[in-house]
């Protein structure tokens, strides 16, 4: 397929200065509109001429979507806050370190300066068959080019594959799920606060979207409750190039311990399915147990139950097993006995 790079299709550019104006524009334009946050996802679509929206709504001029504010019971991060600001914010670093670490590991410094937390959470999948404009399931067609005997699927899903095997590439998403964050979304029915884990959508429910955002919807903020402030956090991201890459797999956890006993825990992984997965079964299995290598090993094995590798991504199963083990037992304890 011929791809004309760097020559974007024509569109009407709107740069609203308030959330209400942005929402009106999005509702008026419906399916014809594309939201522009940091532009690191959107610009690829436009330059490759795969997406040709009639209207582009640039959120960069809306100050109320920017910044990090302490609110009653937690902290609110505007959706247009850059990843650098998230990573460097003293409150986030002190109380919600897993999110700061996740934001700090996104791509490169330049991209983090431009990319926003809202964009990182809401970005589309990076499956190259889909992004090349091929008519796959996610693009409205009737095939997954990655899930074929010779499909290049090293980065694709091992869990919850349902026709489409693309994965969610966000680093901040599992951290938000581990922190039990709430996403503030403006919908046609007003403002809704949605649990982070329910913001993301798998192909079984909607094969053409990665999250609940429909036309006219707008993610305005991420609210992180103080429930897990100062907890024992863990974040680890595995990628091909450590200086700048999407995750092959990442894991985020927040843990409360009493001595060596795990009192409570939230743990999530990403890049293994089309949505970040909270590992509730793992949480339930380790709650009340000693935080040691045996617990971590059992949790790792439990985490990958049901995983089905594709032709070229079987490595993700031991990788996920080991990351979960490390998240629970700690890196020092994580050497495998067998």
């Amino acid at each position, binding site marked *: *397929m011929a791809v004309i790079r760097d020559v974007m299709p024509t569109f009407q550019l709107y740069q609203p200065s308030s959330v209400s104006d942005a929402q009106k524009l999005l509702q008026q334009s419906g399916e014809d509109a594309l939201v522009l946050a940091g532009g690191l996802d959107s610009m690829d679509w436009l330059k490759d001429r795969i997406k040709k929206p009639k209207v582009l709504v640039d959120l960069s001029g809306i100050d109320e979507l920017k910044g990090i504010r302490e609110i009653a019971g937690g902290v609110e991060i505007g959706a247009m806050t850059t990843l650098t600001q998230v990573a460097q914010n003293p409150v986030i670093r002190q109380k919600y370190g897993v999110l700061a670490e996740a934001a700090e590991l996104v791509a490169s410094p330049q991209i983090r300066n431009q990319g926003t937390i809202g964009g990182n959470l809401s970005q589309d999948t990076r499956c190259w068959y889909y992004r090349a404009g*091929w*008519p796959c399931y996610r*693009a*409205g*067609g*009737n*095939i*997954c*080019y990655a*899930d*074929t*005997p010779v499909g290049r699927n090293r980065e694709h899903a091992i869990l919850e*594959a*349902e*026709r489409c095997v693309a994965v969610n590439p966000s680093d901040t998403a599992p951290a938000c799920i581990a922190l039990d964050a709430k996403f503030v979304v403006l919908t046609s029915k007003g403002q809704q606060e949605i649990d982070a884990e329910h913001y993301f*959508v798998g192909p*079984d*429910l*909607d094969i053409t979207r990665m999250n609940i955002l429909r036309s006219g919807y707008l993610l305005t903020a991420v609210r992180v409750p103080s429930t897990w402030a100062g907890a024992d956090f863990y974040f680890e991201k595995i990628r091909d190039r450590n200086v700048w890459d999407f995750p092959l797999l990442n894991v985020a956890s927040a843990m409360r311990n009493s001595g060596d006993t795990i009192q409570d825990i939230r743990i999530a992984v990403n890049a293994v399915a089309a949505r970040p997965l909270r590992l509730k079964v793992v949480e339930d299995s380790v709650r009340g147990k000693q935080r040691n290598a045996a617990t971590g090993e059992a949790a790792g094995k439990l985490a990958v139950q049901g995983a089905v590798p594709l032709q070229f991504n079987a490595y993700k199963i031991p990788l996920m097993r080991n990351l979960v083990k490390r998240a629970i037992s700690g890196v020092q304890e994580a050497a495998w006995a067998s």
Partner: protein
Amino acid sequence: MGILEWATSPLGQRVPIHIAWVLIWVALIGGLLFLIVHAIYVRYFAKEKEFATDPSSAESLDFPARIPRHSLTARLFHWIMAAAMFVLLFTAFLPKVGIQFNWVTYHWIAGTALTISILFHIVHASFYLDFWSIWPDRSDLEDAWKRFQRFMGKSTALPRKFAKYPLENKLYHGVVMLTGLAVIATGVFMMFRVRTIFFPRNPYLFTDMTWGMVYVLHGLAGVGFITLTIVHVYFAIRPEKLPITASMIIGSMSREFYLKEHDPKRWIVNGVSDRRSMADGD
């Protein structure tokens, strides 16, 4: 706006990928329009049914009060097939109109149930039922022509009473059979594109163009079933058809309805009609 959705394959070939989903609404509205037009016709224009009386059909013979029409096996097949069909329709089209749920698994399971039930029906109807009773015969066509002429105001002989199934019923069965075979044959191949318990995925079974045609045929047959189901349910609940509908539940119909609409010579009820045939010297 066409009736098909097209896309460009990785090889640059223009291929159909499925029907345009607007056809869902066309099928739905088409079914409802048929329903409305037919109801108006029956209410305001249709004449009372008239049948030729056969002097040899003495109706005083000892027919039982309930005339057996559908065996338990036939009824079970019908309702299993109906349940599978409704699951297939809802799982196929609700996601297309915005109601999102994990539909694929339910869809292929229901499709498998439908396929097995249809295979059973073919064997059962071929070897254990009166196979030819559901196919139009010469008498059906002659009587249909008489009914049409009388509807047009021409004077002609009265049509005979029906055999076990009226012509409309036989034609409906024929359309459902063709549509069903199309949707099943394409559906079985489409199961190679998703993960099921039956066979490994093989998206290379056909070329992109052939796959596209498979999806289009499946979609056309699928939306066709929207209209066919509406028509079927409509006739099932029409007051004059309720005895037939009830017989699909309880297995039998009343002697009065049988003698009023059906010709005992054309629909031979086991036992009674045999004796009558012998008495008539047939």
